[in-house]
């Protein structure tokens, strides 16, 4: 692997990295100062973001600068406007934002302030999943420090820029990581995604212009402002710029959250960063970016881990959460777990998703436990095709259908063997219990 410069995780290894003193001693809030004191206009900040070609790190990979530019012109639309930070990290396999929030909360806060300035938001809500207590506490303490230091409030850095940042705790529902589900939840309702359009930039929180960005996306902002969009765009591949966080889990020797530049291959990450597949085994299958992506095979490991290369392989970068499975893994069991997850998390609004996820879960369960019937694999396929693409309000239905279709395509023989032998030859030990919804 080529050498490269780290910037995202540099501060996280310092003692007391979560404090304002350490953050400031290591260049913290210089980006905000540049924006407010140089000063840069909001349009100049957005132009820099566009030049960087930073794409969202929450899964969809939407260009951040373009998203910000969708916010209406405040001279024509004087409504209050908001930034919501999606810290509801819940995609199975994903554990990267947590590192930033726990170890470098001021980095996120500085990013929030710059983003709020650029889109002219007067308040920021950081929606953190309820289980992330450490992230929540660290951010709350950091916000308090920043407020006392004049970095948050009516006159940020003693300028006319006013901005509040509030923490908001979710309560364990995966669907609230979907941006409109997040907004409904933040308003104190069930996390039911809204049909789009209208898009959040026109009709978001409380019906006002809103931008929703992922934690890691916002975390990149101060670096881009300081070093320039051109610097950022000089790192990476054609359509995937900058460094990114890879959370690698499952059957590797050194699972972890690692910072890498776009352009590295999955094999380099597995072998040179994560210590290789454990127990001297081979890679059978892997998710490149969380469980909502299509499965890939061990033979696909030479793919470059970026948006275009994974798309060309029929999968996607998602949250860059690589879940690695060795050659002793039961794919029936893997898919049983994945299908159960989407069944549990479907909000229930759309029938394709509500019913479809339930059926996928039941069928994978019976295949994995040796009770499958001959037509099951065909049923999985037809169900998944009825659930996606784009047949429902949000993409959760797609997220259940995509891994299903990939499993059927890549592991049909294995699933069929479980059915014909009335048992899964690779089945791990299991504990039987009914699910809780």
């Amino acid at each position: 692997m080529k050498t490269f410069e780290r910037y995202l995780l540099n501060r996280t290894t310092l003692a007391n990295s979560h404090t304002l003193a350490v953050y400031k001693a290591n260049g913290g809030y210089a980006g905000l100062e540049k924006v407010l004191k140089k000063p840069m206009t909001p349009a100049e900040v957005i132009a820099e973001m566009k030049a960087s070609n930073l794409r969202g790190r929450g899964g969809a990979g939407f260009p951040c600068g373009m998203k910000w530019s969708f916010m209406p012109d405040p001279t024509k639309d004087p409504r209050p406007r908001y930034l919501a930070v999606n810290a509801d990290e819940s995609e199975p396999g994903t554990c990267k934002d947590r590192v930033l929030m726990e170890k470098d909360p001021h980095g996120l806060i500085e990013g929030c302030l710059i983003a709020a300035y650029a889109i002219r938001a007067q308040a920021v809500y950081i929606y953190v999943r309820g289980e992330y207590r450490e992230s929540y506490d660290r951010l709350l303490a950091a916000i308090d420090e920043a407020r006392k230091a004049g970095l948050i409030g009516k006159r940020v850095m003693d300028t006319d820029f006013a901005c509040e940042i509030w923490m908001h705790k979710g309560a364990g529902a995966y669907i609230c990581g979907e941006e409109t589900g997040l907004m409904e939840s933040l308003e104190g309702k069930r996390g039911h995604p809204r049909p789009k359009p209208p898009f959040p930039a026109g009709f978001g929180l409380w019906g006002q212009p809103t931008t929703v960005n992922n934690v890691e996306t916002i975390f990149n902002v101060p670096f881009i402002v300081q070093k320039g969009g051109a610097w950022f765009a000089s790192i990476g591949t054609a359509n995937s710029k900058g460094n990114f966080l890879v959370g690698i889990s499952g059957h590797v020797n050194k699972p972890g959250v690692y910072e890498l530049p776009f352009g590295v291959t999955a094999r380099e990450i597995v072998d040179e960063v994560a210590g290789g597949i454990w127990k001297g085994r081979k890679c059978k299958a892997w998710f490149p970016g969380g469980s909502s992506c299509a499965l890939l095979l061990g033979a696909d490991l030479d793919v470059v881990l970026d948006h275009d290369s994974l798309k060309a392989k029929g999968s996607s970068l998602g949250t860059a959460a690589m879940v690695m499975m060795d050659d002793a893994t039961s794919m029936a069991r893997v898919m049983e777990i994945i299908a159960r997850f989407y069944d549990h998390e479907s909000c229930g609004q759309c029938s394709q998703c509500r019913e479809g996820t339930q059926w996928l879960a039941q069928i994978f369960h019976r295949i994995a436990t040796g009770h499958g019937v001959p037509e099951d694999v065909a049923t999985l396929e037809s169900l998944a095709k009825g659930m996606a693409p784009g047949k429902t309000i949000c993409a959760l239905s797609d997220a259940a259908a995509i891994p299903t279709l990939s499993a059927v395509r890549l592991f049909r023989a294995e699933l069929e063997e479980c059915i014909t032998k009335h048992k899964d030859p690779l089945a791990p030990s299991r504990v039987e219990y009914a699910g809780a919804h």
Partner: protein
Amino acid sequence: MALPAKLKAEFDELATHYPEKRAALIPALHRVQEELGGWISPDTLEDLATYFGLEPVEVYGVASFYPMFRLTPPGKHVVSVCHNISCELRGATEILEHVCKVTGAKPYGTSADGKFTVWPVECQGACANAPMIDLDGVYHEDLTREKVTQILGGVK
């Protein structure tokens, strides 16, 4: 029943963070669960409805949507065990079995002495440090059976 004055004061402050009071409902549900016995009773749901100016069924509709909110009383301690993919690949089933053995509780059940509730949960974002449990809101990661015995053995 009425909400304790301390909580009401907290909710009054929370409501100032938002243009609409209702946005404080989910944070408030967390706080009542933390303060009032680890669950949200029907009485508490009604009290919250009164406080927020909502129908009790609306508050119930919200509370029942979110997996972190308990509408039945748990044991003294709650052990959430991640059973999603990254944890399962690294032994979550063995950990769950062992947690049940040590606590005497079944999955989604409470031990006979009322001390532990064991709750299998979906991905908790501890994937790179799997397997994991969450004991009363605190993560314990990179688990082995021995570590589980030690952690749960230290609980009063």
